[in-house]
């Protein structure tokens, strides 16, 4: 028999290494020959879109179009340590480091512009649209390209470093501030369970994600789609078939991850509530987007059938057995 139900799940996620461990990101910013700006960080692009977010944060901070920013992240020889691309920390930590580096860089640009423009002070100088100009007399202006020309072989660069604030937890009571910031998520699903075959069909799914501020909404949505699909696999399909330390399922014909036919359409809602300690308010969301989905599915199965599944994965076998037991017990 096919039964329908709905379920929700809420979750929170604390960003970063946490527990008072020095969670540091570093960034370098440099003026390139053609007036473009080089940004150097050791934060990895693993598909999450870090490069794009870094470029957007730098471009915003420097007041230049995004295509004037050239990002380098690949080589330990030419980039500073920006910590791991994990713990949902790159946008927040390295984003902050880039923003700080850009602000320091702007001060250095103003120093050079002051000399080029024959000013006595950097006060009221502004960096915008690829130029440094005097706000109170805008005719006084010089482009970044001219500044680069003026400097010749001399390198103009600035550094930025950001360390997240957390405390070590008390070993006996666990009291303290282990992570910051926290990110919140909510998921709802409507599904249909076949009580004979134990198969679960998701009919409707909604994921709501707090982001602080979305640096790039399309990228956020992409993470939401991906987190949802991964959670679907976690809940319904993926099983290593681990027996006495041996993984029975260690290839893709046996370790089943969801296909395009298994993942349904997802309604994605982004909630913005800018975080004051974050770059332009942006919190990380790479991990949080996955977290509330599995419990929503579990709760929906209960809502549909009255059977509570307490063990993952919710394979057809397990579900069918649960229904069979449930029918026998009445």
């Amino acid at each position, binding site marked *: 028999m096919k039964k329908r139900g709905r379920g929700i799940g809420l979750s929170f996620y604390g960003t970063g290494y946490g527990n008072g461990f020095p969670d540091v990101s570093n960034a370098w910013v440099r003026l390139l020959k053609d007036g473009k700006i080089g940004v150097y960080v050791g934060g990895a692009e693993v*598909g999450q879109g870090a490069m794009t977010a870094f470029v957007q944060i730098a471009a915003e901070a420097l007041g230049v179009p995004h295509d004037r920013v050239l990002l380098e992240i690949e080589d330990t020889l030419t980039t500073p340590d920006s910590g791991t691309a994990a713990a949902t920390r790159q946008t927040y930590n390295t984003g902050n480091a880039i923003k700080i580096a850009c602000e320091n860089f702007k001060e250095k640009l103003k120093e050079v512009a002051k000399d080029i423009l024959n000013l006595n002070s950097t006060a009221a100088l502004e960096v915008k649209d690829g130029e440094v100009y005097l706000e109170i007399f805008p005719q006084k202006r010089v482009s970044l390209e001219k500044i680069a020309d003026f400097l010749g072989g001399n390198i103009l660069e600035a550094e930025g470093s950001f360390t997240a604030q957390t405390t070590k937890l008390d070993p006996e009571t666990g009291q303290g501030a282990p992570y910051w910031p926290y990110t919140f998520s909510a998921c709802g699903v409507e599904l249909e369970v076949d009580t004979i075959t134990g198969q679960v069909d998701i009919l409707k799914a909604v994921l709501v994600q707090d982001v602080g501020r979305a640096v790039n909404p*399309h990228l956020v949505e992409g993470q939401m789609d991906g987190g949802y699909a991964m959670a679907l696999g976690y809940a319904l399909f993926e099983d290593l078939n681990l027996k006495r330390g041996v993984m029975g399922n260690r290839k893709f*014909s046996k370790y089943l991850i969801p296909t*395009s036919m298994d993942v349904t359409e*997802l309604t994605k809602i982004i909630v913005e509530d800018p975080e004051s300690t974050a770059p332009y308010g942006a919190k990380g969301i790479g991990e949080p987007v996955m977290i509330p989905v599995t419990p929503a599915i579990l709760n929906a199965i209960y809502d549909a059938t009255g059977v509570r599944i307490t063990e993952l994965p919710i394979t057809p076998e397990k579900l069918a057995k649960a229904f069979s037991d449930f029918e026998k017990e009445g």
Partner: protein
Amino acid sequence: MINIKLNVNGKDYSLEIEEDKRLIDVLREDLRFTGVKEGCSEGECGACSVIMDGRIVNSCLVMAVQANGSSIVTVEGLVKDGELDPVQRAFIEKGATQCGYCTPGFIMAARAFLNRAKDPTREEIREAISGNLCRCTGYNKIVDAIEEAYRYEKGI
């Protein structure tokens, strides 16, 4: 060693290869079309998908000798006169690539599908890419992109 002839991305190649090579090995190692990716070696993930004589196939499940005399299109062959294929454009526009490893395979599957498709539904698109696994995108933006590519091609 054996001689085979292949047409890859419009160019004819005459190659002497080790006979136990698969099509993917020749494309990647001999011809350096490294856009063809290997993700599972068993026809599950579709990262190695290429169009062979008009049909989408897993190049990890074709012996190179079997492709003798065939025409192959890889992702590298889609750019024509510096212009991206509509599928490639749509993948950029709709944010359908994340880590990018599965992307060439998806683009080829989408290309093969659109060559024959008429007013495709999202469900048909999902079926067309059901031989390609993606772990990052949850597929939805890929489906969006293929719909968009169809619109580009029909001028709608």
